[in-house]
C-alpha cells in the first residue's frame, strides 16, 4: 500500500480562494481532531489545508464536550487491566503533556478575555449514589495515580470550593488532583478557527457528500452541493459521521462499526453561592462518564453528562436525560444549582467503536486516512493525535501505538465471562444511580441474577464469542438494529483465527468481582 505525502506543487492559493478545487490535504470534520490536525499541518507549513465541516458543528461531540483534561479522573477498573487498555490509557497521559503548548499557540487567538484553560485541578468525590462501581473505580483512580507517580491527596469533601450537595448524597471521600483541569471547549474551537484562518487554511462551512475515488485510491471529496475538491490526501475526522463517509468508497464487512454515543450536558450561569473553581466529578459510572461540573469562566458552569448508544445520529435530548442531569447535579454537586440559569443545552454524539478503541491510521485505499473512534476523550487527545497524524501524512514515523490501526480485528480485552460480570456491575450501578426501586423483598443478588440472565441470553442470541464492553452489550440487547450491526461484524471474523487474543492484548481472568 502506498500513500501520498504532500506535494508542494499541488498548492492552491489560500488567500481569497474560498472554494478551492485542489488541496494538499482535505480534512473532513471541524471538531477537535480535525481542527488540531489542521493547525499542526499549518504550523509545519507542509501545504494547503482545507477543513470541511458545518460551522454549528451540530451533532458533533466536540461542541458539546466538557473538555476535562483528565486521564486519571477517567480511570476505571478496566483502564490498566490489560496491555491493550494500558496502551489506550497511556495515550491519554501523553496527550496531557501536549496541552500547555497547544494552549500557548491558541492564547492570542482566543475570542474573549476568558482564559481557555478554565481550571487546572480536579476533585474526585465518592458518594454512595453510584453503587459498587463508584467504589471500585475510585480505588482504581488512586491506584493508577500511584502507579504513574502522579500527585494527589485525600481531602475533606466539605472543603471543596462550590461543592454543596444534599445531605443524603454527600461524599464519603474525596481526592484532589492538582494537575488535571479543563479547557473551554467552545473557546478552544473558536480560537482554532481564528488561528487557522490567520495561517491560511480554508474552512468550508459545508458537509461532504462522498469521497471521490475507488476502493483502491481516494483522490478527493464531493461537497453537499456537488463541488469537487481534488486532494493529495483526505483525512476523515468527522466523528460519528466518519464510518458512513468511508463506506462511500470502501464498503467492506470487516470495517469496524462506530456507534453514536448520544450525550447531553448543559451550561448554566451561577446565580448565587460559592462557585466551583475546579472540576468536581464522580468516577466513571454505569455505561457513562460520571457526574461532573466544569468551571467555564465568566460565571458559567458546565454540568454533564449522559451517554446512551443509539441508532440514529441526532442532536435531540431525551426528557429522561434532562431530568437525570438536572436532578443529580442539584442533589450530588450543588443544591443551589436549582436556580442557576441554563444558557446552553449541549447535545452531541461520541464516536464509539465496537471494541472501544480509536481508529487512527491509513486505510487500504491510498490517499485515505481515518481518525475517529475516540469515544469520550477525543478533545483531550486531539493535540497528540494531530502530531501523530501530521507525521504520518508527511511520511514520517507516528508517535502512537500501532494497535489503533483502523483495519484491525476488534481488540479483545475481556473474556465472555468478564464481559457478563462487567455488564451486571454497570447495570446495577445504573439501577441505583437513577433511583430505581424494587420491592423491598427483592435483594441486590436477585437483581444481579436478572441482569446476568439478560447478558447470557443476549450472547446466545447474537451467536458471537467476543467479549463486548458493557455499553455495547446493553446497546445490542436493546434493539434489533444495533444487534445486527454487532453480530454481522463479529461474524466476519469467525473461524478467522485469534480475534479473542490479538497481539498486544491480554484478557482478564474472567473471574467474578
Amino acid at each position, binding site marked *: 500500500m502506498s500513500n501520498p505525502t504532500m506535494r508542494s506543487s499541488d498548492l492552491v492559493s489560500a488567500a481569497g480562494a474560498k472554494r478551492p478545487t485542489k488541496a494538499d490535504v482535505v480534512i473532513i470534520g471541524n471538531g477537535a481532531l480535525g481542527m488540531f490536525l489542521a493547525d499542526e499541518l499549518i504550523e509545519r507549513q507542509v501545504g494547503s489545508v482545507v477543513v470541511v465541516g458545518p460551522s454549528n458543528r451540530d451533532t458533533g461531540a466536540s461542541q458539546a464536550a466538557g473538555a476535562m483534561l483528565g486521564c486519571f479522573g477517567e480511570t476505571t477498573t478496566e483502564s490498566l487491566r490489560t496491555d491493550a487498555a494500558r496502551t489506550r490509557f497511556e495515550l491519554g497521559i501523553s496527550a496531557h503533556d501536549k496541552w500547555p503548548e497547544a494552549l500557548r499557540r491558541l492564547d492570542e487567538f482566543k475570542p474573549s478575555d476568558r482564559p481557555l484553560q478554565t481550571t487546572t485541578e480536579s476533585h474526585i468525590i465518592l458518594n454512595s449514589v453510584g453503587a459498587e462501581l463508584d467504589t471500585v473505580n475510585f480505588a482504581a483512580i488512586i491506584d493508577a495515580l500511584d502507579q504513574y507517580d502522579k500527585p494527589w491527596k485525600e481531602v475533606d469533601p466539605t472543603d471543596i470550593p462550590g461543592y454543596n450537595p444534599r445531605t443524603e448524597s454527600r461524599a464519603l471521600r474525596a481526592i484532589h488532583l492538582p494537575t488535571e483541569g479543563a479547557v473551554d471547549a467552545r473557546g478552544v474551537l473558536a480560537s482554532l478557527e481564528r488561528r487557522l484562518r490567520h495561517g491560511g487554511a480554508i474552512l468550508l462551512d459545508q458537509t461532504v457528500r462522498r469521497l471521490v475515488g475507488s476502493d483502491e485510491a481516494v483522490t478527493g471529496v464531493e461537497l453537499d452541493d456537488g463541488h469537487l475538491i481534488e486532494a493529495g490526501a483526505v483525512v476523515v475526522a468527522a466523528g460519528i459521521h466518519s464510518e458512513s463517509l468511508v463506506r462511500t468508497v470502501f464498503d467492506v464487512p470487516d470495517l469496524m462499526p462506530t456507534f453514536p454515543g448520544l450525550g447531553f450536558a448543559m451550561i448554566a450561569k451561577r446565580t448565587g453561592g460559592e462557585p466551583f473553581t475546579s472540576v468536581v466529578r464522580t468516577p466513571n459510572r454505569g455505561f457513562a462518564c460520571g457526574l461532573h461540573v466544569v468551571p467555564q469562566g465568566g460565571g458559567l458552569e458546565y454540568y454533564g453528562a449522559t451517554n446512551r448508544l443509539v441508532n440514529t445520529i441526532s442532536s435531540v435530548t431525551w426528557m429522561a436525560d434532562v431530568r437525570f442531569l438536572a436532578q443529580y447535579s442539584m442533589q450530588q454537586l450543588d443544591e443551589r444549582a436549582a436556580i442557576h440559569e441554563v444558557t446552553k443545552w449541549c447535545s452531541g454524539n461520541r464516536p464509539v467503536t465496537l471494541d472501544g478503541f480509536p481508529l487512527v491510521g491509513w486505510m487500504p485505499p491510498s490517499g485515505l486516512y481515518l481518525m475517529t473512534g475516540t469515544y469520550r476523550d477525543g478533545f483531550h487527545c486531539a493535540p497528540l493525535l494531530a502530531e501523530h497524524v501530521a507525521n504520518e501524512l508527511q511520511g514520517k514515523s507516528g508517535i502512537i501505538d500501532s494497535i489503533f490501526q483502523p483495519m484491525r480485528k476488534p481488540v479483545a480485552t475481556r473474556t465472555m465471562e468478564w464481559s457478563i460480570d462487567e455488564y451486571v456491575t454497570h447495570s446495577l450501578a445504573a439501577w441505583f444511580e437513577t433511583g430505581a426501586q424494587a420491592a423491598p423483598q427483592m435483594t441486590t443478588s436477585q437483581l444481579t441474577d436478572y441482569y446476568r440472565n439478560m447478558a447470557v441470553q*443476549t450472547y446466545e442470541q*447474537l451467536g458471537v464469542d467476543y467479549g463486548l464492553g458493557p455499553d455495547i452489550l446493553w446497546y445490542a440487547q436493546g434493539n434489533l438494529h444495533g444487534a445486527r450491526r454487532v*453480530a454481522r461484524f463479529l461474524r466476519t471474523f469467525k473461524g478467522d483465527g485469534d480475534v479473542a487474543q490479538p497481539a498486544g492484548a491480554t484478557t482478564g481472568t474472567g473471574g467474578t468481582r
Partner: protein
Amino acid sequence: MPAYQPSVADTVRSLVTKQLNLNGYSQDLRPDDNLWSLGMTSLTCLGLMLSIEDTFEIELPEEALKEATFRSINTISAAVESSRK
C-alpha cells in the same frame, strides 16, 4: 419431477418453531398467530431476526426492524418476500 422447495412461510415456520422452542406444537401454529403472545421476547426476536437473514441471505431494511414485522409467520414472510424483490 422437480425437487421439493419449501415455501418462505414453511421455512419461517421452521425457524420460529426452533427459536421459540415450539417443537411438538409446530403444526398448531397458525400463520397469523401472535408470536409475542406465544412467548417471544425482545431477545428471542433478536435471534430470530439474525436466523431469518442468514437463512434467506437477505438484509431486512431498517424500517422493518420493529416489533410488528415479527408479529407472526405471515408478517415475517411478507418482510422476507419484500426484501427478496
